[in-house]
């Protein structure tokens, strides 16, 4: 009996897995290679290998100390914000909780970059809007200088507070209320129940949120860049960036720093996952319960104020400041000095390199997300459905970019593609390829959650009915995955429009994109122009979300 003919499935599956795996591993390999280079830093392949780059990391102890300081303050603040919001919104009976819970997504959409710009406008020394008001009352000096460790920590805490909120409220929601009820029935009071039952059950969730936020903080870049550079305050990520700017660029040192940062982050993230998995009691299942609400009586008004306060401080105030500034000739809150203008928006859309940056970002976002969902859709099916040998390893490799700080991955991509004989460095092609690589985990996670919900017998039935693999994928699998594909498209689109860490390394003079352009404008020209650009970027995201949601509603409405 001769071997059966090779089917499309046997070609497509290994091809997709190998391609995606190579895209991920190739830059990381280069990063390791560069970090061991102790000869001429710009030579490739290295003339001499050694560990000097790692040994010399101790020279950067100040950046390391700064990173720890910022990360610790931001983590503590973020967990306090997140815990308070989670408790108020899931366990108390304050009015309008559902709406508040939905609004809690907004700080996440603000991104650290927008947050940093807005708080720079609000609390920059002398020119900051709040500091202007402060001085106008006759007070000496500034109320607060945002260009400092505390400023960076504050901006990051507002952003990471939402992350902590999501993780902690998930832990609170997944707790069976009968555990508390049985404590009450057995005679324990409110306080005793809270201390002896509720707190121990929620503690692992809080702890893992703390570690997770801390790990994210270690790798964060945008806020430290926007608020740290003007005051020459460096953390590890901005130090890496600085190392690549020196002449000649010290890629070896940058790579060694990046890899060490990645190592520390990987250990912390693993610890967070370990705490969540082993520290959690089996009574907390994936099942969502309706938590018992506590009647907080007259305390509900202060609690309501706290809940709204977070959203106002994290979203409304920064956006309002950017909006006001973007329409002004000079950023001010003194009524008599206000001069309103549309010039900033006109400049943003026309200016030599800025206008094209918007266009480039849109082209990239649309094509990366469109091609990405198809490839990642097939990839998700292969990993979670096909029972292909090695699918577990493939999943691990594809999820890798998630644990690498974006800036460090950008460095690896830069070094990898500069040294490749294919001339795509400095073109949109390279940016597209880089975006696709770093957003693989985002897309895979989103689509996987839908793949796992699709009953395998729906596909098996197609096979039994006589459909081949390609026919089955086209007529059954992909249509059933549509909600996941739409969600993944949207998330990748949003992430692409805002991408900074990778773009800042890979964009060339003819392939500028929006996020680095905003940062450059902030550092080199005016805050008014930057505010306008940031708002256009934010508006693009909101329009995309709105269009896609109405589209999705029409599609699902038509089938019902």
């Amino acid at each position: 009996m001769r071997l059966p003919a090779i089917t499309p499935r046997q070609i497509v599956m290994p091809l997709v897995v190998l391609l995606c795996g190579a895209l991920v591993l190739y830059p990381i390999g280069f990063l390791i290679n560069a970090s061991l280079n102790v000869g001429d830093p710009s030579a490739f392949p290295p003339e001499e290998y050694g560990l000097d780059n790692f040994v010399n990391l101790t020279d950067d102890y100040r950046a390391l100390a700064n990173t720890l300081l910022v990360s610790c303050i931001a983590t503590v603040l973020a967990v306090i914000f997140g815990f308070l919001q989670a408790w108020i919104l899931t366990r108390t009976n304050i009015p309008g909780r559902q709406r508040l819970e939905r609004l809690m997504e907004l700080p996440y959409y603000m991104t650290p970059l927008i947050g940093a710009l807005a708080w720079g406008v609000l609390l920059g020394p002398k020119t900051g809007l709040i500091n202007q008001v402060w001085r106008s009352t006759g007070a000496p000096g500034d109320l607060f200088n945002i260009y400092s460790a505390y400023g960076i920590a504050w901006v990051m805490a507002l952003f990471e507070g939402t992350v902590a909120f999501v993780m902690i409220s998930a832990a609170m929601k997944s707790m069976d209320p009968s555990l508390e009820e049985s404590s009450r029935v057995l005679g324990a009071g409110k306080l005793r129940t809270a201390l002896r039952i509720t707190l121990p059950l929620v503690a692992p969730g809080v702890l893992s949120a703390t570690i997770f936020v801390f790990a994210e903080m270690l790798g964060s870049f945008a806020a430290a860049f926007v608020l740290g550079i003007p005051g020459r305050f460096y953390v590890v990520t901005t130090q890496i960036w600085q190392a690549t700017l020196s002449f000649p660029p010290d890629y070896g040192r940058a790579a060694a720093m990046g890899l060490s940062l990645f190592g520390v982050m990987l250990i912390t993230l693993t610890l967070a996952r370990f705490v969540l998995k082993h520290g959690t009691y089996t009574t907390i299942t994936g099942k969502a319960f309706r938590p018992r609400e506590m009647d907080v009586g007259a305390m509900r008004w202060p609690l309501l104020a706290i809940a709204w306060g977070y959203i106002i401080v994290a979203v409304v105030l920064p956006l309002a400041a950017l909006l006001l500034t973007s329409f002004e000739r000079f950023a001010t809150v003194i009524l008599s000095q206000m001069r309103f203008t549309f010039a900033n928006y006109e400049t943003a859309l026309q200016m030599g390199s800025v206008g094209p940056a918007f266009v480039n970002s849109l082209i990239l976002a649309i094509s990366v997300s469109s091609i990405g969902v198809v490839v990642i859709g097939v990839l998700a099916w292969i990993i979670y459905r096909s029972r292909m040998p090695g699918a577990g390893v493939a999943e691990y490799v594809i999820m890798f970019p998630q644990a690498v700080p974006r800036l460090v991955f950008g460095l690896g991509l830069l070094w990898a593609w500069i040294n490749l004989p294919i001339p795509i460095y400095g073109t949109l092609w390279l940016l597209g390829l880089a975006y696709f690589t770093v957003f693989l985990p985002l897309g895979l996670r989103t689509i996987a959650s839908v793949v796992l919900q699709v009953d395998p017998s729906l596909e098996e039935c197609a096979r039994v009915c006589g459909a081949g693999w390609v026919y089955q994928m086209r007529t059954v699998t992909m249509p059933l995955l549509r909600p996941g594909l739409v969600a993944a498209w949207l998330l990748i689109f949003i992430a692409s429009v805002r991408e900074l860490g990778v773009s800042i390394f890979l964009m060339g003079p003819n392939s500028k994109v929006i996020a680095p352009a905003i940062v450059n404008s902030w550092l080199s020209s005016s805050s008014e122009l930057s505010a306008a650009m940031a708002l256009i970027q934010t508006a693009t995201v909101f329009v995309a979300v709105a269009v896609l949601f109405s589209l999705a509603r029409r599609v699902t409405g038509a089938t019902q």
Partner: protein
Amino acid sequence: MNQARIEVSDLIVRYGDVTAVDNIAFAIAPGELVTLLGPSGCGKTTTLRSVAGLETPTGGTIRLNGSAVYSARERRNVPAEKRGVSMVFQSYAIWPHMTVFDNVAYGLRVRKLPQAEVRQNVERVLDLVQMQAFADRPASKLSGGQQQRVAVARAIAFSPSVLLFDEPLSNLDAKLRAEMRVELRELQRRLDITSLYVTHDQEEALAISDRVIVMNGGRIEQIGTPEDIYNRPQSRFVADFVGSANLIAGKVRGQGANGTLIFEAEGGMELEVAPSDAPRERTVVALRSSYVHLVRMPDSHNAVPGRIHRRMFHGDFIQYVVDWPAGQLIVRRPPTELFEEGSEVTVSFLPAHCVLL
């Protein structure tokens, strides 16, 4: 059995160290409906899925219409879509993003039939399952029973040579299940389609099958007609799993009258039991609880005094727990035969109903 539609021989399915199906063999004649019956994890679904081509066996041969679709020796494994079988899934597997019509037409369109022929066939089978009025309905808007009918219509639409059922009725409520059972059997008879049916419901298996294959732990315990399986179980497992039976421990003492055997139960009581080909060392007798009377029967050889310990009224029958010399006996009687708890009775049954295991 050369004309067998489905022929499974020496089939082995292993997952790592676990042997799900352990060397089983059976054959199904054209037009026959054969059931694989057993508890969950006995390998019945794995066997069915191996026939469909959805599971890759470790060893053995599977033939459909005389040609091998799987053969370990010839290294042949025809993919599911090329086997020409059809299947009704436990979850129905109705595609929610299509209409009823599109669901049923799927197998016909895959085979690139002309549009008119597709329409004609879909209408024919929807008519058979009485779902013609629902053709343009989105499949997500159907009740469980309706989905079940569409799943059957889809499975028979492209006239497969063999139809496989994977616990098709297990998601329906009890009343609907009993109705669908009759309809499925009716349809299968009318179309004269060879069927392999998997269920863990012994009542369902007995009711709809031409023959039943009882499986346990990956092996076949017994193959036979429903009456065979019920009246002449060949193992303790079959007696226990199919229907309600009392297992009486003891040993064979000698030859009785009319070819019966004398069996001495634990406690010293002697019973006349049915003759058996099985070796005389067998130490258990199975006695169906429905075959036990609580008054002396005229020509019974086995009549023993007993006492009603507990009575449970089930509606269609009454279940008694009776104390008798060999311990306790489960007895099922029609609801007309009412005895008070504690009353003295005569337990009486035919030797033919005592099956030596």
